[in-house]
């Protein structure tokens, strides 16, 4: 198998595809990873070799973290940034610091690819939900309905009032670690094809007495912008935004140059102009205005003005406005609320 060995050696030098599981206050790590050319941040854990856990992960989210861990195809490895792997039930994970993160990732990736490292799954190896053999056909449910293997619901016809043109309602719970969503956000939706029928949003609050994250020079608005750019398929420009976000003394000209590239009808606005307006207190109704605000605030901090952190939003009000949106639109809308949702996760807003 000399060919495979050779391939493995080349593969070990590839940019490290990492899946990022973000806890609270992990913007600095995310910006670091997006900005570094040695790392590819993936949108699906299936595409990664290494899982990076960053920020404060509350106790309530540890089980979900385990599921994401097992979705990274084996052989895999996990790197925990500034945290304790044992507390996260990931005993095999490597602990490291933010400064040493990327070097560590390159090392761990090479070890995984060359077969020297393989973290075993933390979840049950077999289907944890007992469904096989139950029901008239052994399909796990009543009538023609099947069971819920792995706890994942199947598409269900409504009990009454079914319209021939309606697809079966598909219930879906994602988060709190879905890479394309703001961190620590859990979304429960009923899908009608690709349109949201009903939405429930939950943030996972930090544990009491959780350590306060150290202040960083990273601009969370620009990190959010990088995420938004990655989601509309502008990964290269996302790198630029992330690099700008982690630069300690940003020059206002750089921010203006980035804005010049994005704020045109055929730039980022092609993706955000039509997302649908929101009616929320303290939030710009127009989706494009929201990322313009991030750039404006980055520009003002660059010239030394003080930066006003955005206030929290009421998640149930956001949820009610997402109903009827297409899935992709809803995801992009949530990402345009990233700073507000991060604030809500720490200190939830009371709905008016």
């Amino acid at each position, binding site marked *: 198998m000399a060919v495979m060995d050779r391939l493995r050696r080349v593969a070990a*030098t590839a940019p490290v595809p990492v899946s990022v599981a973000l806890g609270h206050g992990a913007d600095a790590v995310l910006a670091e990873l997006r900005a570094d050319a040695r790392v590819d941040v993936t949108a699906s854990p299936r595409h990664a070799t290494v899982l990076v856990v960053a920020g404060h992960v509350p106790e309530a989210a540890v089980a979900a973290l385990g599921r994401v861990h097992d979705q990274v195809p084996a052989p895999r490895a996990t790197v925990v940034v500034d945290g304790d792997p044992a507390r996260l039930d990931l005993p095999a994970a490597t602990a490291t610091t933010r400064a040493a993160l990327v070097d560590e990732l390159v090392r761990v990736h090479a070890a995984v690819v060359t077969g020297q490292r393989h973290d075993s799954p933390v979840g049950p190896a077999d289907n944890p939900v007992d469904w096989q053999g139950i029901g008239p056909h052994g399909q796990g449910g009543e009538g023609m309905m099947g069971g819920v293997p792995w706890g994942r619901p199947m598409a269900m016809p409504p009990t009454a009032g079914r319209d021939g043109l309606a697809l079966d309602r598909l219930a879906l719970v994602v988060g709190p670690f879905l890479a394309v969503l703001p961190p620590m956000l859990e979304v429960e939706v009923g899908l009608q094809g690709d349109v949201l029928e009903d939405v429930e949003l939950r943030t996972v609050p930090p544990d009491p007495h959780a350590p306060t994250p150290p202040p960083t020079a990273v601009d969370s608005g620009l990190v959010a912008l990088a995420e938004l750019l990655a*989601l509309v398929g502008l990964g*290269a420009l996302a790198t630029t935004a992330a690099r700008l976000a982690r630069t300690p003394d940003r020059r206002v000209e750089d921010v203006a140059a980035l804005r010049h590239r994005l704020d045109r009808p055929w730039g980022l606005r092609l993706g955000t102009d039509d997302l649908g307006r929101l009616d929320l207190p303290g939030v710009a109704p127009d989706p494009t205005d929201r990322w313009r605000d991030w750039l404006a605030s980055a520009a003002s901090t660059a010239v030394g003005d003080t930066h006003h952190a955005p206030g929290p939003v009421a998640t149930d009000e956001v949820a009610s406005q997402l109903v009827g949106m297409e899935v992709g639109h809803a995801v992009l809308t949530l990402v345009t609320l990233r700073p507000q949702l991060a604030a809500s996760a720490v200190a939830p807003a009371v709905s008016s």
Partner: protein
Amino acid sequence: MTGELAAPHPVLGAVVVLGVLLIGAAVVTTADAVVADRVAGRGLGLRTSLVRPWRRIALALVRPQPVTERPDWGLWVLAPATYVGMAALAVSVLPLGTDWAVADVRTGIVVLGSAEVLAMVAVFLHGWAPNSPLALVGAYRFVAAGLSFLLLSMFVLIAAALPAESMSLGRIVASQQEGVWNVLRQPLGMPLFLVVALSVSLHGPLDMADGTELATGTVAESSGPARLAWEFGRRAMLTAYALATAVVFLAGPTGPVLPGWVWLAVKAIAVAVVLVWCGHRLGRIGIERYVRLAWTVLLPLSFLHLAIAGVAALA
């Protein structure tokens, strides 16, 4: 059964088509990496930009394919194969040199349209097979997009066939050699066809099925060689449609001094680079806006385009 252009032996023809797709995919991948690194302003240097995609391919080859819960394995394997096959079908009817095509069939543009339709089937199956919600959403989405851009593509191709008085792509090239290139004779055609090219090959900003906001949609559950096969299919499809654009609108292998296939390659690469560059500078358009735009703006434009071409052909 075939038109006027010479055809190589079928085995040689298959080798040629496969070679064109492989080289094309390599060119698209390279262009993509170079453009991405330039747009990102990483200052990596050209050499690093050129090497990185090959390392990613090596990585994909050594990674495993995860097992989802009760997938439709048959369709999951069939989908990328069909998608690549349709790219091959499209390439095989295009004239690749001044006097030869792998299969210059008389129904060339209908074959091109059929390849598009069956590519839509392949994308739907690729989203359906893994039995995973986000992949399925990508599949549904692509059907909505596909039904919108298929008509567009047919009208544009029929308009190109009118001055040639033939559905054969060889004749379409010949009609441009005698007259004006279609890009000038039918100015609306090429922009509309580029929309189709981006849509059917799942490239940004019209990448409807594999969008990042769906955690990469139909490819979200694939890893390793399966994912590599799908990504190869996308680039092969972009190659096929860049070649088709060059043939239908830029007179394909026509050009002075150099051999025909060189001219075709130059034109197709130029088209591919423009498409790749668009993907890195334009944000992905939302599906609802895309469908609205396709039915209310682009489709009427293509009607108009066809009507003008028809009147011009009669005149």
